[in-house]
């Protein structure tokens, strides 16, 4: 897969998944993001790196937060931005997804930021587009959400820079979560000391250990001595699908409270990709506590997305050969 998102000289061409990227690549993304964090404090919040380029936000799933931060990131890089909200019903067939793409390509878009309900959608689009077009995955099914994972490790690095000494616990619906998968790959690539997942078996995918995590079914046991606790969002449909009995029971068993937070390290930080269901994943007291870095995550999202977009657009254009799907 890495061959699809990297040029032959190892530069970023698309950003589809964390999997297969080197530790050096992740660190260079984090370092680039660090340099972009200052842009927001300027009186003119813009750098001209993508001037004259057109970025299309192609969202097949509704999203406000992620789309907005991508839009802001592109605008701060001086790109022209198109927002295209596709209703999923109109594009349940692959033909129309391809047709949509061909039409937009004809408008000379340079970069697509894609969110889609199907795993592998960004890969599929990357295989189909013209050589000069870059694809940024803004979330595909349960597969990957690499910019979210990068902003999460960026936030962690700002608080706790030595990944090797960290224990990171991810709590909640790992099974259906593209965020969790990308976080696990990013944390393991950065050689994090221990990555834990904490969930009932119904919210864990088969053979989850193979991703390089330690599994806990008990929140209390899994939290012990954690440096970082990442709470995942719980979707309502998990109750209908029979994965869970009720939000009430979930909060009883896996909800984060100030008391439970005591089990983690005293300086532990608590994270959430948002938006939070207060009283389901965590109490309001935890969300608003000094341990919470949730709002920092949001603002780091812009810097990370600026970093990824500028890197993907700066690859040597002559180097990019069209990937032919087989």
């Amino acid at each position, binding site marked *: *897969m890495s061959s*699809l998102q990297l040029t032959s000289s190892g530069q970023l061409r698309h950003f589809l998944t964390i*999997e297969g990227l080197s530790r050096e690549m992740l660190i260079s993304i984090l370092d680039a993001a660090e340099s972009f964090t200052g842009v927001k404090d300027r009186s003119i919040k813009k750098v001209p790196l993508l001037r004259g380029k057109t970025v299309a936000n192609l969202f097949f799933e509704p999203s406000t937060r992620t789309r907005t931060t991508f839009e802001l990131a592109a605008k701060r890089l001086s790109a022209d931005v198109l927002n295209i909200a596709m209703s999923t019903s109109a594009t*349940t*067939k*692959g*033909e129309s*997804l*391809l047709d949509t793409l061909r039409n937009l390509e004809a408008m000379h878009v340079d970069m697509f930021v894609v969110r*889609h309900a*199907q*795993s*592998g*959608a960004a*890969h*599929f689009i990357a295989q*189909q587009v013209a050589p000069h077009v870059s694809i940024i995955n803004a979330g*595909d*099914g*349960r*597969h*990957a959400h690499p910019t979210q994972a990068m902003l999460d490790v960026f936030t962690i690095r700002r608080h706790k820079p030595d990944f090797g000494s960290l224990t990171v616990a991810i709590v909640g619906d790992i099974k259906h979560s*593209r965020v969790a*998968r990308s976080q696990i790959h990013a944390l393991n690539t950065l050689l994090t000391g221990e990555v834990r997942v904490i969930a009932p078996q119904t919210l864990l*995918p*088969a*053979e*989850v250990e*193979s*991703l390089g995590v330690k599994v806990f079914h008990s929140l209390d046991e899994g939290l012990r001595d954690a440096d970082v606790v990442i709470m995942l969002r719980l979707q309502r449909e998990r109750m209908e699908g029979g994965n869970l009995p009720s939000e009430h029971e979930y909060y009883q068993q896996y909800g984060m409270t100030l008391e439970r937070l005591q089990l983690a390290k005293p300086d532990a930080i608590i994270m959430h990709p948002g938006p939070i269901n207060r009283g389901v994943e965590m109490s309001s007291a935890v969300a608003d506590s000094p341990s919470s870095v949730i709002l920092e995550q949001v603002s780091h999202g812009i810097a990370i997305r600026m970093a990824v977009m500028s890197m993907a657009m700066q690859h040597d254009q002559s180097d990019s050969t069209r990937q032919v*799907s*087989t």
Partner: protein
Amino acid sequence: MIRLVKNGRVIDPGNGEDRIRDLWIDHDGMITNDASDPSKQLNDDQVIDAEAHWVIPGLIDLAARFREPGEEHKGTIQSESAAALAGGITTVCLQPDTLPVIDTPAVVELVQQRTQFCPSPHVTMLGAMTFGLKSKQLSELGALKQAGCVGVSNAGRPITDSQLMRNILDYAVSYNLKAFLTPIDVHLARPGCAHEGKIATRMGLPGIPHAAETAIVARDLTLIEATGINAHFCRLSSARSVEMIAHAQQRGLPVTADVAAHQLFLTENDISDFNSNAHVYPPLRTERDRDALMQGLADGVISAISSDHQPHEADAKLAPFAETEPGISALETLLPLCMKLTQEHGMELATVLRAITSNPADILGVPGGTLESGRVADITIINPQQEWTLDREKMLSQGKNTPFNGWPFKGMVRYVLLKGQPLYSCH
């Protein structure tokens, strides 16, 4: 016309024959031992020189789809017949999942008639167990049998209602119809598109657990025992299913099973780059499952290898993985893959050839699958030494959807005779 296939290595695994000899075909297109009149002058076009070639019974494929009627954008009787013959296949068994479904004699007759207009292999059909394959109401199984259906099938559409399944089997017994069962529990499988294991977990694809197959194998074995029907399990994918069926066979239950050729070569690893050409149903599973399927074949628990041919138009595979249609265009790779089993995977030649000739003939109850004197001269002649590489654009099937594009193969079909008539040749 009398014909002579000269000097070939005649391999008739159903009869344990494997030797170099001449093979004669009489006026009626039947194989004969009677080469009585040596003075008889044969013209050149009556003699096929098969020196250094294998002469085997024409292949019998338990599961193909020609897509006609209803989905001619995927394949037609003409295109897929040509593909079958090029693949050395002389009898195909069509699945009932056409549009309309093969659930009335009218559709059976329509397909039978259309095969008359082009060179085609013998075409047999399975009737749908329920109207429209909707798992609600029994089809007119008696009428389907009279129209020529060799068995009845659910064609991969699960029958979750156990009472309905029991009634189907009871009713089919009354007409001495064999049941062809594709075991899948839709509730356990939905919304999966890949084997539930570490690859699907990594790729974020919804999984289909082993239990989706084994739960229904267990239920159906119970119902087979209760009803006394002859049954065949189609396209197994799981090691545990092989064990369960082996156990049932040991207890004397009249059950057989087949495996799709691709399940013997591919595993879940082959979808790891979202390769939609390896999207199949039931899904590709683990190496352990593949090894167990191979062992089941060697042990005779699985007695047939099928193509599970499902041609698609290009668009059907051009989408994010879960949205692509499952299936492989497989008529032209059935024999090459089977040869690979003997060349590279240590399978005994006779076992493999039986699994694509005499065994499926027995399972379907159709003629062919043998080179015995007095039987129909459906014959495939192979150059076993010829090496070639699969180029999907050169396939005769309208569907170019194959995960085996670019694979090297050894052994190529040279002639195919149907009732003694050469319908395909390749030089």
